[in-house]
């Protein structure tokens, strides 16, 4: 049995804060940042990175292709 861990990298300058990735995330990992980027958009970022499973849903729905998804399999040691 292996656990899957993922991570999302958002290109913060490219992000327009449309909120679609936040809605698409099944684990509620993403959220819009309080701060804004140089264009004045509240960019998306990982609020709870430990829950990410690397399912790529956020990247799929991102209209600006600013999301890169990484995923690793973590073998779980059985006691």
């Amino acid at each position, binding site marked *: 049995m292996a656990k899957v*861990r993922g991570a999302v990298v958002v290109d913060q300058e*490219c992000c327009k804060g449309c909120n*679609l990735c936040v809605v698409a995330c099944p684990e509620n990992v993403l959220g819009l940042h309080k701060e804004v980027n140089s264009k004045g958009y509240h960019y998306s970022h990982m609020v709870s990175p430990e829950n990410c499973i690397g399912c*790529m849903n956020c990247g*799929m729905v991102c*209209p*600006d292709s600013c999301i890169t998804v*990484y995923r*690793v399999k*973590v073998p779980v040691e059985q006691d």
Partner: protein
Amino acid sequence: MAELQLADIIKPENKVYGKSKIMTDTPLHYCYGCSHGVVHKLIAEVIEELDIQEETVGVAPVGCSVMMYNYIDIDWMEAAHGRAPAVATGYKRVNPKKYVFSYQGDGDLAAIGTAETMHAVNRGENIVMIFINNATYGMTGGQMAPTTMVGQVTSTSPYGRNVDINGYPLRITELLAMLPGAAYVTRQSVHTPANVRKCKKAIRKAFENSAKNIGTSFIEVVSTCNSGWKIDPVAANQWMEENMFPFYPLGDLKDGERDSFEQFSVQKLKK
């Protein structure tokens, strides 16, 4: 076991999804949450997967996606308003080995370019036609289009579309599915990850059909225009699901190849 740090996950060998190499670094000029960006990305991904960057030619429309040539790194041509299928026809006939696709919105394809659209499909040209249906003229400020829903408020129908005055919404995909030249006619959407995957499959199939010489492939993508509809992107997706999908149901309308029409071919006239 020590807890895995983010830096251990974010490594090039662990990358599973990212921006396609065919997309240029230019930031998209579209409004936030616009469906155009997703469809652009899918086209770029399909071109990358099929490895046809050098053989693909796109025909850009007039509308929001008029500057599409800035975003996908392939050969492009710009057509007059509504004439993208005609331009694509010409290119495909001169260069039959190229993959030619046209990309149009509803004001372009279903209003001013209806004649070009119908006849290109009726001739069974081996091109891919991608149709973005967002039920409004997005670029000019959200005016009423032929595909606008009954009762939908736009800037030129402030009391909602009235069928007595404005007529009915046009289901052009159903019309095209009846034509003998069409090989693959489908209606897709890109509002959820599952639909994005299905839409990508459809675009891939259309490009593969283009190489097989079996007729026109037509993909309608039911999309949102949150600026034109004047709501936020998430609400726009919901509105589309509730109001547009009953009238524009998703799915394949035709899947095969163009009809041979042998049973209707007549004998030569004797003089």
